């Protein structure tokens, strides 16, 4: 399965819904999407990973890069994920301390700190 990306605006947040596999081949597409959003002035991003089937370190790198970009504009990057196999990758790399991870888009969109 390839990567699918769609974006929508909820209040002052931009929700990026990601589906499929984020790996060394597809991660550049996600990177482009995040860079484009930040360049267009969207600094508060919510990446919804509920439909992601696979995530590797290349994908983690892209998310960290996205976080770095939004932080340069005092923005935020929140993740939505309930899948244990995806959460495990964040845990073993220590990135659960770096990203706020929410259980629903609603929760992520209304989070303030």
């Amino acid at each position: 399965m390839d990567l699918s990306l769609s974006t929508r605006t909820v209040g002052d947040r931009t929700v990026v819904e990601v589906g499929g596999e984020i790996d060394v081949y597809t991660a550049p597409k996600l990177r482009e999407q995040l860079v484009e959003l930040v360049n267009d002035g969207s600094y508060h991003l919510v990446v919804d990973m509920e439909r992601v089937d696979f995530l590797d370190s290349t994908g983690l790198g892209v998310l960290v890069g996205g976080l770095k970009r939004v932080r340069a504009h005092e923005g935020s990057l929140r993740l939505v994920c309930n899948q244990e196999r995806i959460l495990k990758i964040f845990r073993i790399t220590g990135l659960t301390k770096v990203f706020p991870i929410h259980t629903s888009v609603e929760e992520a969109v209304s989070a303030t700190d």
Partner: protein
Amino acid sequence: MATVELRFSALPEHVRTARLVAAAVARRAGVDEAVLDEVRLAVGEACSRAVGLHESHDINSPVRVLLIEDEKKFSIEVGDGVNGDSGAHENGAAQGAAESDAEGEDEMGLAVISGLVDDVEVTAGKDGGMIRMTWPTTTAAVLPQGG
């Protein structure tokens, strides 16, 4: 001899194929279903790293993956064609600062592998580098029933 041997051009689009093949062979070898996700991720990380190394060193040879079924264990060896004497495997110093991003991803990939797999061996030599990962197999392996 490897149970299954895979060679693929060092291109990102083929890493997924390697993941799928490795998971299929691991399942057949009797690796626990609960661990198959880890096998898939670990072999993907190792192959992504090898593809990156081939790209950064302009190496045209394929990445090779050996899937080896032994008694009570299943191993995957992912080999790249980068001469370990260049230092690329030790600390990436040979690459210089210009490729620090690629090296960072390389490090992250190794971090994920070592976090996932208990039995990992990373070696470097003149003929290239190699990551060997081993998982135990259950005794109730998926054996053919009556042929």
